């Protein structure tokens, strides 16, 4: 009987935990890549959601909305490299225990271990973050260095311009945490 009560309690609490942190405002996520010389490439999307079970914060970025400023390049990125139909999301998992939350009115910065899942593969990563807190609102920015070949993504090459496999993924959003 006690086991049943515990199970019921947990099941009832799960939605509350999942709703413990929510994104407000317009989030931004993307990547910054480089090519030869000064060639650079930025992809941006405003689609981002977070899932919070109280232990691990999951930052989920649907990749179908990534835009680089040139739609043909976006198509190549989606279809040829990221294979978005098969692998629609990039997911960063960050244990709360590794994140230093600031006190009200303060800012914290640090590096935390996390796990990045992309293109059907997952790898441990180091996440550089900055969190500014006002009440229960947290302004979060973070970056993660990635080597796309580690995730089975072909190195993009287009008419003589080859992008370097090392890119920087980034996200910034404002969240409210109960």
């Amino acid at each position, binding site marked *: 009987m006690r086991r049943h009560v515990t199970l019921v309690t947990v099941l009832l609490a799960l939605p509350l935990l999942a709703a413990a942190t929510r994104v407000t405002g317009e989030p931004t996520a993307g990547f910054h890549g480089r*090519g*030869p010389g000064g060639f650079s490439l930025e992809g941006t999307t405003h689609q981002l959601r977070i899932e919070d079970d109280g232990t691990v914060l999951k930052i989920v970025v649907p990749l179908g909305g990534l835009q680089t400023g040139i739609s043909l390049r976006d198509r190549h990125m989606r279809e040829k490299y990221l294979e978005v139909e098969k692998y629609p999301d990039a997911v960063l998992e960050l244990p709360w225990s590794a994140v230093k939350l600031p006190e009200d009115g303060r800012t914290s910065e640090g590096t935390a271990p996390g796990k990045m899942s992309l293109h059907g593969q997952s790898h441990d990563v180091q996440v550089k973050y900055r969190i500014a807190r006002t009440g229960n609102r947290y302004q979060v920015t973070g970056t993660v260095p990635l080597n796309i070949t580690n995730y089975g993504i072909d190195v993009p090459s287009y008419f*003589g311009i080859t992008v370097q496999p090392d890119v920087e993924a980034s996200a910034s959003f404002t969240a409210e945490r109960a």
Partner: protein
Amino acid sequence: MSLRRGSSHGRALWPLALVLVLALPVARAHAYPWMIRHGYTNCSGCHVDPSGFGLLTEYGRAQAQVVLPTLWGKAPEEVEPTTGIVYGAVPLPSWLNVGLSLRGAVLSTTTSQGTKWRDILMIADLRAGVTAGPFLASASIGYVPTGATLAALTNSQRDNLVSREHWLGVRVVNQKLYFLGGRMNLPFGLRNVEHTSFVRSATRTDTNSAQQYGGQVVWDGPGLRAGLMGIAGNFLLDDSAYREQGYSGYVEGAFSNAFTLGLSSLVTHADRGLGSIANPFVLDPFSGAADDWRQAHGLFSRWHVGGPWVLLAEADLLVQSASGVPRDWGGTGFLQADYQPLQGLHFIFTGEGLHQNQVTSYGAWFSISWFFFTYAEVRLDTIFTEFGLPGGGHEPSFSVLGQLHFSM
């Protein structure tokens, strides 16, 4: 004062012009600073010249088909660019870049003295270049019936062969560091196409004919690009007294993929000063003056404000001195807004000013540029200028310039 030897064999060059016309479609010959709207803060991806302008790379030729023209209902992501010339009919190896550019215009200029009409063949240039590993080279040859005498290989009053650029170079450090030598565009300010704008004509850094011989070091890195050229002179000028020696350079930081800010500087010396063409109503006191020192220092910026809007700005201090001529302090400014409501169609609003030789001029441009088809542009400029007059007052001028430009 003509610095070129006169001759009368220019009519023999008409067959060359005919060949150039028949060879259409032809190569794009311009840089567009408003390409920052696509996140391009550097120029080397698309142009053989790492500071922009002129011959396109293989990647540049592809982008010219994808992001420049109106696509007439076709979605940009459906475009499958070809990198060969003549609409892909003639393939090119990836290390070879070839193209032609043909820009013809009709100009009407109205002043208090009446209206004058001119038809102008502005550019009919064949360009070729190599980007093979660390080695690169670029050269152009073309024909102009009038003008561009500072780039003329021949010495006629009319109908000259011109070579605006011819240079060799190497690039190292993952194509970030370049060493170039030959006749090149001066690294200074915005590389805008309006070569008669005050910032280009008063600093003599236009891409029409103001190129100089010399050696240049270019840094083309992420977030920062810079070029410094040691100017040895324009050896296409027969009279060496008018050749300028000195330096020209810029450094430009990209603070994001939508905003850049740059600093330019130029100092040259010539035994005899060349006359300025920025204000045709002023007799340039430095024209022919001995021991002529010319300086220009300034700031420039490119900013993709958002959506269809791009702002380009440049402001330069101008200083000139020569033996027996009082030092002249002046300045010039340029502010341009480029609005692209649909791909390929640009409404361009420009304001500019110039203070030089004790008189102030200012002007406003409204231009429509339409890349109505791949490698084809029609452009209309309406230009109102109040040219300052010595002793006070202004001479108003209203110009309408219609251009048709085929390129690849």
